[in-house]
């Protein structure tokens, strides 16, 4: 499980991904005007081959004049992360042909399927 902490801070949504086997990843999405999830989506696509689900955490927020917008953003973000979890579950649920050879080899190679280039090259893959 990758702990995924979401919090609103100033005019940003800050999402922190934490797990023992990966380096902590922090994504900051501006919510001042339009909300663009591109960086988040790209990172999630990158994570798919790891087949590790996300454990969602949303920190409390109290901004009365923006409550409606933040609620909608929280809802949308949560849906996106749940879509990710559903995909990972599907992947894990697919019965694979028994792998001949060390699993770690396969796993290493599968991980290279990340198609979208991620600018952070410090990932453990």
């Amino acid at each position, binding site marked *: 499980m990758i702990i995924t902490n979401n919090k609103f801070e100033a005019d940003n949504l800050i999402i922190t991904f934490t797990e023992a086997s990966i380096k902590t990843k922090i994504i900051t999405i501006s*919510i001042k*005007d*339009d*909300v*663009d*999830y*591109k960086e988040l*989506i790209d990172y*999630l*696509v990158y994570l*798919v*081959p790891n087949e590790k689900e996300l454990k969602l955490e949303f920190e409390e927020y109290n901004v009365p004049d923006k409550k409606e*917008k933040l609620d*909608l953003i929280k*809802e*949308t973000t949560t*849906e*996106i992360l749940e*879509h*990710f979890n*559903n*995909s*990972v579950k*599907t*992947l894990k649920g*697919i019965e*694979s*042909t*028994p*792998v*001949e*050879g060390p699993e770690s080899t*396969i796993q290493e*190679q*599968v991980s290279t*399927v990340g*198609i*979208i280039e991620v600018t952070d090259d410090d990932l453990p893959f």
Partner: protein
Amino acid sequence: MPKKYSDWFKVDLHIHTNKSDLTKTNDYDGNFDLGVLKTKLVENGVQLFSLTDHNIINVDAYKTYYEEKNDGDPTLLVGVEFDIRVTQDDDSHLTYHTLLIFNENTVDKVEELSTLIEIHYKQEGIALKDRYLTEDQIFELFNNYHFFYIPHAGGHKNIIDAYKGTDITKVQEMVLLMECAHEKVKEKHRQRHKEGFDKLKDSDFRNKEDEAFINFSDNHDCNVYPTPKSGAVHEFYCLKGEPTFETIRFAFIDPKSRIRKQSEVDALKNVKKHIAELDIKNIANVDDCELELSPNLNVIIGGASSGKSLLFNLIGKKIHSTKHTFDTYKKDESNVTIKASNSHNLQQDLPFNSDEVVYINQGDIVKYFEKGDLNELVVDSGKEEELTEAKHQISLRKKQFDESLESFRNQFDKLNTSYHKDFIIRDGDLKNMLSDKFHFVSISNNINYDNFQIREDILNRIKVDSGDFKIDAIYDFTGLEKKNIEEFQALVILKSTLLKKKKEIQNEIKSFLQNVTSSISAKNNTLDSSSRAKSEAFKRKASLLDTCSNLFSEASKFNSCAKGLNDYDYSVKQQIDIDKAVKLVLEVEKVEDLPKGICSCINDPEADESIYKNYLLLVQDNNRLKDYAEYTDTRLLQKLRKENNLIVEKFDNPTTYLDYGSNGNSKNKSPGYNAEMYLKTVLQQDNCNLIMIDQPEDNLGNTFKNEALINILREFKFKKQLILVTHNPSIVVYGDAENIIIADNNKGQISYQQLVLERKDSQKQIIDNLDGGKAIFDMRSRKYNIKKLLNS
């Protein structure tokens, strides 16, 4: 047993007896014994000889030999070695030695010639040891005789030294115009001799290639025969033909073909596999006969319907030539037998490998070149499969060309479609995009997905192929090799699993992105109207960007495609080895202007502009497609094909020609030239042992027949067996055929007889059977006939 064709025999026309002691002091080195000499001659295989004493004839020796001669004994021609006196410019004298060999071999004639000589010297008052003759006296004395003049041309008492100090014209007359040969010029000195001699001659006589050189034993002691007086080892010379005077004449006329050292003859006789004999028996309307074939040039001559081609095809059948047409004669040849050179027995068949024989039927060569498609040649060469494959390769090239047109059409159509799409941005969109309302930015799908199908196909093929490979016994796999294959198969399975996993991941990523897109879209729909308007404006902007991007992308791709056609090389060349020396080439050459053909599909094309720029005109105005009221992609393809039909037709009818290697090719050459060149090339092939051609002269140019063909036949007849049917006397006479088989049809009964050129009675038959034969024989004789030349 003597051969029925012209075969080699040893000759020695310079042997002394003790009679020479009368005219030269201490000339003979031992006790002369005719019996000993005869035994030595027989032991050494000499079949033609002469007793040539100095300026005198040993009549007794001749008489004894002629009276005791048995069938099969060596032939003895009357001869003398004369001292010829040459007056120098300062009135001094030099002498040289020359043999005179007379066309006489009877007691009466030897006595007659001896008497003539003795009377001459008596009348001149010349003592025995002072005897000499001048050249004029030679002609005066022996005017009524046929004789050969064989002067020493090297070493002691040679003709060149004798003439150096005086008029060289006489030498030319004696050794160039006469039927003569140079004696005593060592082989290693002959080239130098020729060059030196040439400097002395008048220009018209220089560079004669067929001057005859010959050496005899010049033996002076029968007990050590054939050792010469010098004690050196003697190597016999051989002449080709029967041991007769006429054979010598032929040899001196054509030394290249008819004079060889013994060692050379041994090499010539050791020729490749060839047909030695054909025993014809029990063929309806054909006389039984045993034909012996020369390893060199055999010609079959005869009148029309005399049975020449029947014999030719009979041989073809016996050697299993695929092209023989003997069966059309409807004759049973089962009792005909054939013998190989390396066999002692006659046999039913003598199969040759296809590459060992060149078998050309009458008119074949011309037929190959008449229509220019050369299909007949391919069929005759047994190369139909190769031709089919070559044509298949060209059809593939045609398909590629058509696919290129189709690809061009497709790319144009994509550009055209992109160009005619809507490019929409609405009033207020900019304002809405700049409003302070928020929306969720749509995600753009810019992922390049992998194509897994291709990779799956490859792995599946490898699985099947490696399985087949592993169990194929022909590879003789060792245990270790089998283990390697199994490890490779395991690797393939491993990679298949990996591929499957990656495919699942990719599919799930697609699914994830679709779900996210739907969620964002759904959320945007819940926003207030201003936010939705902003979202829609951004969607239209994104769409416009996509459309524009697509248009430029398609334009760029079409530009590349058009450039590809600008430089497109549709040429193709397929080669079929007809044999080792000749290749059949099927070629589509790049001669048509493809860009012009492409641009011709639109109205008013701009000739100086590229395909791309011309087709931008068609994008802008689809009505510019020539001959069509309205553009469709199908119509464009039809038009592209039509305008480039000349190229398409070239694939259906490629230029077909023969590549003769260093002899050039048949492209744009006349049928006659090609026939000549083809024949020349096949004759030059190294690997074939037997060449059979029915009437090679048919439709060949006269120049080639008389010069090139003859030269080639003469060159190759000593390297491979040639069997020709011919009407051409030049081939027979100038080709110096070793074996002449004359076919005769007497009221439907065919017979074959073997003749040789050097036999007088044969010459008459040959002349009677070859149009122009007499003229050719006359010309051949006249070449060195002084009387006729001086009178001409």
